[in-house]
């Protein structure tokens, strides 16, 4: 692979992970890749519009004449990037695990809700070498909730999310095998660690003080190492 081929591939998909041999030898392409990943981070943020509350239309009672099968199922080919495969697995796991009461979704367990939540933010799971700013980190992890030391790893994503009715800092750090999700849940007290498992994702919810921290990554990621790192670098404020 030469520079032109590599740059075409990376511009079409910044998560492209081929051409490793060329990349290690070409500083210019390394810089180009980093530049495209920064650009994509901005694109992702720009595209992520606020979504208004759902107004469910009045759904007609179905009879034979109103049932409408006009939309054919698209065929799926599972050749997607790794981070999408993770998200797709989470979808399946989440759909199998949730149940509905009224118009809201209630989950069987905290683990199920976490898996379902990850599917809502697949763009968080991107491979990148660009860290979020201190300003962003501090706006998501409020000082009266927790302190997060940067040595936890390269923090590439931070968003305040709602888990089990509580605002929860949702962070992503770059692991050795891909992005790793960390959810800081100061109000979720557990009796002991709980495992979270999917086909290509696994994780754990660790009781920490009066709260808990969820850590999820790809199956091949050394999560125990990251767990130790998280426990050393995250401190509850209360």
């Amino acid at each position, binding site marked *: 692979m030469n520079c032109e081929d590599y740059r075409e591939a990376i511009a079409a998909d910044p998560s492209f992970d081929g051409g490793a041999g060329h990349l290690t030898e070409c500083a210019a392409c390394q810089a180009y890749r980093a530049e495209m990943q920064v650009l994509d981070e901005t694109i992702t943020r720009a595209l992520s519009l606020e979504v208004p509350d759902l107004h469910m239309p009045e*759904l*007609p009672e179905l009879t034979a004449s109103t*049932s409408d099968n006009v939309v054919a199922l*698209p065929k799926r080919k599972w050749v997607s990037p790794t981070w999408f495969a993770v998200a797709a697995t989470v979808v399946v796991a989440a759909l199998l695990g949730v149940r509905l009461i009224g118009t809201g*979704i209630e989950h069987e367990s905290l683990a199920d809700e976490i898996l379902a939540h990850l599917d809502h933010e697949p763009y968080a799971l991107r491979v990148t070498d660009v860290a979020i700013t201190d300003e962003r980190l501090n706006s998501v992890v409020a000082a009266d909730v927790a302190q997060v030391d940067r040595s936890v790893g390269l923090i590439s994503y931070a968003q305040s999310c709602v888990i089990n009715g509580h605002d929860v800092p949702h962070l992503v750090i770059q692991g050795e095998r891909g992005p790793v999700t960390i959810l800081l849940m100061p109000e979720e007290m557990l009796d002991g660690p709980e495992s979270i498992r999917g086909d290509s994702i696994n994780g754990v919810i660790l009781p920490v003080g009066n709260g808990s921290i969820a850590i999820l990554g790809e199956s091949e990621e050394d999560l125990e190492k990251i767990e130790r790192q998280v426990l050393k670098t995250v401190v509850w404020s209360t």
Partner: protein
Amino acid sequence: MQSSKAATERRQRFDQYVGVYHQDMYRYAAWLSRDKAIAEDVVQESLLRAWKSLDALREESSAKQWLLTIVRRENARYFERKRLETVDIDNLTASQAALLAEQPNEELDDMRQAIYELDDDYREPLVLQVLMGYSTNEIAEQMELKQGAVLTRLHRARAKLKEHMARQ
């Protein structure tokens, strides 16, 4: 007419999909139409159509792609019905302008405007890839294109955005 139990189960299944994918449906519709008000209309119509054709969905793992396909077709129908004219970036309606004024951030405003100005042919595959997590193969299926054409469009879309941002 369905039995009461079957109808309840069907409704629960539908609510489950809507709960999980409503945000994706709205964002996809918003970037296809480039108008928040139209996006809400398109999502409403799409939900109705999905409700009527829910029995066509056999695999739960295909639910997202199935719903986004419905959104895409409803958006096309909406524009066909209204026969909307090309959007003039200097003369936007309030709901078009609202899409660009999403967050008070200069860099994001610039990027959002650059995405807004992309041709539909470039903007849609970018949204599917970046926001929806589609592979280039899946984008090719959704847009009924060859994979090579998708790669070219994605490459050009990013080149245009990069050029736009460099000018700012």
